[in-house]
């Protein structure tokens, strides 16, 4: 984050302003990515009028950065009408899309409307790998064509590469492709559980050895020794810090009007169909509960070696059952980075060890002859 943006974020935090909102316009999608956390049916999306009204409420509440995402945003027939309204309200608009429906005409319109950036999911530079993840033959070609259309208009494009076991060996190829196309590239090894709590998608994520390999790639992390160093003891200010921006300067709104602290934090705080956005933001008990949590309140994490530079996601922790608890995926990342297990990993190991109790073998007939698991 730039210095000025940090200053602005600090001011927004002090004034309780939701600087940054992700609004999902739909959960419908024209791809079926194997790791996707969404159910793609339409359960009653907000209408055009409802979304326009919400945008006005969000502008009045001080929202500046608006990320429009989904699902696939271009499946909404009113997408450009919504975008036009958002830009009329002078939001800094970022888009997240698979770009399959972006051709020359759409790219030109996006430029005309002053979109800040377009983030496009690319899983591999090889069609057989990318298309096997999206489950749509020809999808890589369509997305890459779209990137070229957007670039030819001069728009800022970011390739988002979610790293999984299936495409682990391709991230260098994706980065080379990004360089060739003249676009930015981000890499994220986080796979999220489904919004209904189903955790089966997590099996698709990279394993500990693969994470270790990624974190020791200097082309990704810069100074490997510095990146993988064991963090210093946390100071008072680190323990008083807020865990992340979710609920503090950022939140998420679903296509059905539900407001959550973050797209990865499905803790219901209100619904803009029944309440004003600003009232949910300022007065929801749930939002205020999230807001009240400081690093020092995280029972297991406070005593952890990694607490001062952990990437702990409170949303993932919530989906594990406790928003004040650890997020195991981030424990795995800290471990892969430093080789030091987290407090959560050590506690789990102790519990597992306690579950195995070997009883003494009795010499008397009929007695158990082996250990038993209590």
């Amino acid at each position: 984050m730039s210095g000025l943006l940090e200053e602005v974020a600090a001011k927004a935090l002090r004034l309780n302003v939701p600087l940054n909102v992700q609004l999902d316009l739909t959960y419908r999608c024209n791809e079926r990515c194997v790791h996707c956390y969404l159910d793609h049916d339409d359960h009653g999306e907000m209408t055009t009028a409802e979304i326009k009204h919400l945008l006005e409420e969000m502008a009045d509440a001080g929202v500046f950065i608006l990320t429009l995402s989904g699902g696939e945003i271009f499946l909404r027939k009113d997408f450009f009408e919504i975008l036009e309204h958002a830009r009329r309200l002078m939001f800094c608009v970022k888009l997240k899309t698979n770009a399959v429906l972006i051709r020359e005409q759409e790219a030109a319109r996006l430029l005309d409307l002053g979109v800040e950036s377009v983030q496009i999911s690319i899983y591999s530079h090889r069609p057989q790998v990318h298309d096997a993840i999206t489950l749509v033959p020809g999808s890589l070609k369509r997305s890459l064509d779209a990137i070229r259309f957007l670039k030819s208009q001069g728009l800022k494009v970011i390739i988002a590469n979610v790293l999984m076991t299936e495409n682990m060996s391709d991230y260098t190829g994706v980065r080379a492709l990004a360089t060739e196309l003249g676009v930015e590239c981000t890499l994220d090894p986080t796979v999220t559980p489904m919004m209904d709590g189903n955790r089966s998608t997590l099996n698709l994520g990279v394993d500990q050895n693969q994470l270790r390999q990624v974190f020791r790639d200097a082309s990704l992390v810069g100074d490997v020794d510095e990146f993988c160093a064991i963090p210093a003891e946390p100071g008072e200010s680190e323990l008083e810090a807020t865990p992340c921006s979710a609920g503090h300067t950022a939140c998420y709104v679903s296509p059905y009007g539900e407001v959550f602290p973050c797209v990865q934090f499905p803790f219901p705080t209100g619904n803009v169909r029944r309440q004003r956005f600003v009232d949910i933001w300022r007065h929801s008990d749930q939002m205020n509960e999230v807001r009240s949590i400081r690093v020092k309140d995280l029972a297991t994490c406070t005593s952890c070696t990694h607490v001062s530079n952990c990437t702990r996601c409170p949303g993932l922790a919530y989906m594990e059952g406790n928003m004040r608890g650890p997020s195991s995926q981030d424990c795995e990342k800290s471990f892969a980075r430093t080789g030091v297990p987290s407090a959560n990993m050590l506690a789990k190991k102790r519990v597992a060890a306690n579950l195995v109790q070997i009883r003494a073998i009795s010499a008397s007939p009929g007695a158990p002859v082996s250990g038993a698991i209590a």
Partner: protein
Amino acid sequence: MTKLYVARNPRVAARSLDGEMMIMSGRDSTLFTLNKTATILWQSADGHTSLDEIVEQRICSEFAVEPAMALQDAETLARELASHEILNISEQPIAQKTPVDGESR
């Protein structure tokens, strides 16, 4: 003296935070923050009110400044904002581009 007209560039993103504008350039996503005086100039830049009218009606009325000096400062500021493509500046009234008409909050 030639009149100057200023209009918000509809390609930028902008929002008021505690009375001061945050503005993100449409050219290169650079973030700017404007102080209270520059914010008044930005909010008044409708393309058809001249700079001297903005200074007289919005700036001199709010700050105890001498009008000629205030106009000179405002013109310097307007030209600087124009160099970052935040404002458009012209000697003729500027028609705001539609459909994005630069509504500012």
